[in-house]
């Protein structure tokens, strides 16, 4: 067992140019050994950073050294690893090596190449969902590794109908993207659309599933996210069962769900773990918070700038007094405060957690009170802006929360332009835009428009689980019924 590090000998095996590139990487290793039985020389070539050394040390190398190794075909017999390929085309070498295979060369069999799978998966341990945290319910969140994510989903849906199909996206990043659906439930057209679009993606690198969202969206100029992303495996499992499609992107802890609707962005998955009345109440609160958050400052600006008649006499005194010393017109006052809040949020998001929290508190309290005392902003508006910001944070999906925060600026602009009329006009624009949006060609506003009363059971309200016996009509699933409703609820008479 004399390891020979002779790169120049390996060079003679095949001269194709690729190895000169490989050689440049210092983590590429080439080692040669002699088999004990046949005394034949064989080589191990691999990226040390990509392969699991333990596999080589414990499984591959001892077998190859001690057992009879005459031709590459023996690999299947003697190495206790399932994923072994024997290929002839030298073009495949590069790809396999980069995917974490070990290239085995045999001096007597120079035209063929053996590959032993020895991928090293650097796996982060499971953590709690951070963005979609819930007090009740499972505490698992997705991680970056696609295999592990798939494992989390398969555990929750142990059926053979759950189909996972993998694609590679990105010319440089070669990111693995898996499309999941349940055969026999999910609409075929939707699955085909997703696959088609993923195949058509033309890009060099994919850093996160958010890139895929952007590339798959029907209208990439829209402010609204058109694919739902979640970090909860339980949510993905439930939504797959509903007849939707999940897209897992390697390297991203967020799984995408398609097609989706606007309403879905406002439902937290925790809603399903709570009593349905409580959940409905929370959803309504959230919806109200969003509407309030978008409209409160524009309405303030409209009433202050144009329609003072709208203000009830009892409130008039408070508002006039609070604005007396302020030199800025209402719109600038509102923009100033809104931008301050955005600044605080952005500063908090960019800094490490602990510092971020401090910034939030210091900024919120100090800047707020100071600007009121300095007479730069009115205290009434400060309350409105703070409440509005709070309202925008209630959105369960982070990306939608961002949208909501940006959304108020056009409203502000129109409020300054035409007062209350401008707000309604901007609202019309918003509705028109939402009407035109689609997610995988399915209407984004469903089930409100087109109206599907049966689907309304899980929108602003959440009805009891037994009542939701049908899959959303808008998905046009192959099996519209989820379960037998009659079996789910057996009405009993009194004292039976």
């Amino acid at each position: 067992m004399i390891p020979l590090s002779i790169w120049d000998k390996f060079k003679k095996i095949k001269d194709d140019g690729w190895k000169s590139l490989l050689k440049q990487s210092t983590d590429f290793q080439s080692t040669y050994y002699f088999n004990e039985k046949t005394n034949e020389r064989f080589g191990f070539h691999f990226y040390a950073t990509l392969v699991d050394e333990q596999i080589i040390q414990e499984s591959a190398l001892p077998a190859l050294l001690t057992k009879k190794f005459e031709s590459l075909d023996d690999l299947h017999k003697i190495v206790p690893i399932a994923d072994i390929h024997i290929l002839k085309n030298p073009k495949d070498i590069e790809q396999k090596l980069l995917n974490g295979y070990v290239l085995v060369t045999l001096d007597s069999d120079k035209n063929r190449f053996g590959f032993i799978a020895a991928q090293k998966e650097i796996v982060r341990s499971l953590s709690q969902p951070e963005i979609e945290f819930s007090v009740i319910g499972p505490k698992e969140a997705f991680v970056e590794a696609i295999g592990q994510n798939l494992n989390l989903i398969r555990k929750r849906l142990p059926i053979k109908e759950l189909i996972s199909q993998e694609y590679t996206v990105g010319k440089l990043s070669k990111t693995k993207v898996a499309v999941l659906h349940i055969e026999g439930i999910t609409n075929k057209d939707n699955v085909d659309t997703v696959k088609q679009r993923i195949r058509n993606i033309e890009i060099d690198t994919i850093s996160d599933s958010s890139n895929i969202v952007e590339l798959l969206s029907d209208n990439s100029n829209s402010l609204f996210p058109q694919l739902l992303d979640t970090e909860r495996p339980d949510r993905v499992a439930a939504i797959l069962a509903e007849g939707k499609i999940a897209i897992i992107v390697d390297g991203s802890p967020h799984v995408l769900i398609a097609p989706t609707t606007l309403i879905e962005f406002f439902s937290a998955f925790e809603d399903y773990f709570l009593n349905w009345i409580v959940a409905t109440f929370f959803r309504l609160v959230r919806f109200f918070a969003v509407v309030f958050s978008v409209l409160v400052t524009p309405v303030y600006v409209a009433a202050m700038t144009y329609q003072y008649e709208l203000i009830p006499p009892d409130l008039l005194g408070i508002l006039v007094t609070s604005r007396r010393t302020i030199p800025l017109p209402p719109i600038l006052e509102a923009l100033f405060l809104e931008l301050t809040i955005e600044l605080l949020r952005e500063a908090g998001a960019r800094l490490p957690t602990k510092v971020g929290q401090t910034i939030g508190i210091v900024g919120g309290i100090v800047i707020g009170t100071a600007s009121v005392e300095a007479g730069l902003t009115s205290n009434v508006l400060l309350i409105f802006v703070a409440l509005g910001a709070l309202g925008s944070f209630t959105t369960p999906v982070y990306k939608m929360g961002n949208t909501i925060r940006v959304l108020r600026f056009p409203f502000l602009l129109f409020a300054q332009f035409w007062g209350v009329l401008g707000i309604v006009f901007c609202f019309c624009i918003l509705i028109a835009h939402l009407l035109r949006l689609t997610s995988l060609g399915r209407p984004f506003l469903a089930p409100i428009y087109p109206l599907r009363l049966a689907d309304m059971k899980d929108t602003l309200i959440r009805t009891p689980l037994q009542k939701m016996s049908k899959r959303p009509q808008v998905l046009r699933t192959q099996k519209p019924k989820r379960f037998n409703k009659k079996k789910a609820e057996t009405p009993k008479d009194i004292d039976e």
Partner: protein
Amino acid sequence: MQSQTIPNNLKISPYLVFYVIISMQIGIGVLGYQRIIADYAGHDAWISILILGSYIHLVLWMMYKLCEMVNGDIITVHEFLFGRFISKVVSFAFILFYIIYLLSFILNFIEVIQIWMFPDINNFVFSLFFLLLSIYIVYGGLRTVVGICFFGTILPVYLIFTFTFTLKYADFTHLLPIWEHNITELLQASYHMSLTSVGFEAILFIYPFINKPEKSKKWAHIGVATTTIFYTVLAIIAFSYFSKKQLENTIWATLSMWQMVQFPFVERFEYIGVANWCLILLPNICLSLWVASRLLKRATKLKQRKGAILISTIAVIIVTLFEKGVDIESFNNIVEQMTVAFVFVYIPLLYCLSLIIKKVKT
């Protein structure tokens, strides 16, 4: 002429016709029709609304019969009955009709805004913004336009509840004695109600886009019945709220009634009401624009996108040039005569004619 086969995914569900009819019927007229009809039939004018409502049902039935006959829109009907040339002439007449119709909405709404909100709002800017939005919607196709019809009906529904505030001041004895006016006066009032009630003729143009049109019939009639009842109830509330002479002096009775509405957080509701009317007018304008541009496409092969822009440009120019010099009242009279002639006279005539021609042909 291009084929009339519309791909299924562009068609609308039959029940949506209900919203199309309601949103098209309820337009700018609602804000002040009470005074106009009360001028002719006094406190009995609500009967006129019911008379007109039943006539509308009849006309609607005829419209469906006409469309069913050829399984296409009104242009196809003309082509079938009179040949290609006449149908082209007719489609240009309809394009003109819808442009004027669209103008009447924008002009009247601008007038309302000028009097109730901003005396100095600019005709050009307002119409430009409104039509840009309409173009954006029309570009989304009929499904988006109908979606706007849907939201233009559903979202302002809450306004109905605001009229309960006026009930506190309503004196229903104003309606007594019933039937004090003779039938001529009632019919006159019905005639003047017609501009407020039209809009349902859009069915003639969207018919080929309806999925299973025979199913939509029911919804169309329910829609017409709903608006008729709404108009009647609103008229009764107005008659009981205003005294007779007071109503004669009130141009926008509906808006004036909102002046009594008060919430703890809103002192003067009429401002919200006027602003909200934006959402109610939008379907009218969008569907008119859609119909006009579609007809233009059928008649001249001009792309509908370009047609919509062309028509809006014309509309913006006219609205901008339409200064106070021209009386909006007389413009409205022209629109009224035009709509009555088209919807309530021409369509029934056409229906009778179609029966005769069908007999002759067979």
